[in-house]
């Protein structure tokens, strides 16, 4: 019988007990995804690796304060990665809203070999995102991956702030329905 892998929650408990092996397992489980997310936001490997290191150290330091009612460990870890990466993006003094076309080119960097390894769930999320009308998908992607505030998006896309908010709201609602339907 195959040995049971520890659950994410068990890993968090072990982390809180300062077990370095739990951190290694957590990294093996989510390090690649965390790096991919950071890279998607920052667009360069050195900064992305710094973010991932920082995020895992935050998990190591903050495991005792982790609260399951606020989300599962995977989401918690990835939210730290997201926050850190976007913080860095926004702190860059030279940061300006990039041309829309340039920002949208980033997904084209996809590693086809890696893409082929994706599991069904990954493809489901991608499909739910791709199924959105372009304006809604673009708004959500530029907000989440591009680090743009909704006010910046309003300026960048040349639409009223209310339209940006509406696109976010309707887009996320549609994604929720799509994911419920597909899963």
């Amino acid at each position, binding site marked *: 019988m195959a040995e049971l892998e520890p659950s994410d929650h068990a890993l968090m408990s072990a982390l809180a007990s300062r077990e370095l092996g739990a951190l290694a397992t957590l990294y093996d489980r989510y*390090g690649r995804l965390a790096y991919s997310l950071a890279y998607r936001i920052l667009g360069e490997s050195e900064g992305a690796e710094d973010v991932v290191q920082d995020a895992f150290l935050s998990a190591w330091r903050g495991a005792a*304060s982790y609260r399951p009612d606020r989300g599962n460990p995977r989401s918690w870890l990835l939210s730290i990665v997201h*926050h850190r990466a*976007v913080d860095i993006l926004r702190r860059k003094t030279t940061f300006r809203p990039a041309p829309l076309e340039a920002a949208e080119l980033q997904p084209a960097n996809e590693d086809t070999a890696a893409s082929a390894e994706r599991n069904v769930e990954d493809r489901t999320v991608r499909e739910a995102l791709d199924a959105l009308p372009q304006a809604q998908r673009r708004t959500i992607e530029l907000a989440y991956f591009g680090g743009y505030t909704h006010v910046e998006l309003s300026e960048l896309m040349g639409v009223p702030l209310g339209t940006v908010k509406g696109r976010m709201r309707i887009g996320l609602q549609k994604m929720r329905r799509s994911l419920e339907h597909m899963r």
Partner: protein
Amino acid sequence: MTEHVLDDLEAYALGALTRTDAERVASHLAVCDSCRGEAMSLGEIVGVLPESVPLREPSPALRERVLAAARGEVPPWRSRPAWSVGHIRPWPIITAVLAAAVIVLGAANVDANRQLRAVTAERDASGTTIEAIREGARTWYMAGKESFSGSGGTLYDPHADGKQPFVLFHDLPAIPPGKVLTIWLVSAGSAWARAANFVPDGRDVQVVPISLEVAGFDRCAVTMEDAPWGPRYGAVVMESRIAPPATAP
């Protein structure tokens, strides 16, 4: 209760609010069950977005970097801490103060140097930090306020290249379960950058490395937070102005 924030919850979930707006929303969520429920629901949807990202491999060295950094951290509860000097009785506070004095007085104090040598000998793992102190550092002291009165922390920004800044705390009180202390660096424009999270380990002296460069910020502060990420929400328990970095001509 503050005004409902439903209009901003999608942007909040996507991280698309300014820090100020995010803090306003977070403050409301702390007291509004209905908005918090909707925010959590949106957070679940946003939480799957990373799965749409093209997968990439980090360098193999990153794994060891993460583990090595964690290995070098101060273990807060169990086992002997790698660098906390709290068990060296009766000196823990004296050691911390003398370490600071070495820097402030230009490493001229013989007693302080002797104490530092003692600490170095006692703690192999503290070598890097002690070396950072020996080679000089800029320091700023934060005095604890209210329930943290009597405690404090000194921010060290080592002069030596590659040495990580850290805060040397003393007499930290216990904090409620589920809470975390956060060290912030604050820019002149009042942007709060999270530099480290930690939980007091119950010892007299505790060292916490911080993950940001000090240069570019003009204030450091410590708050008690519910979560080790996200915008600042908790009250400031200690803080200090820090000298602005030298500007290029």
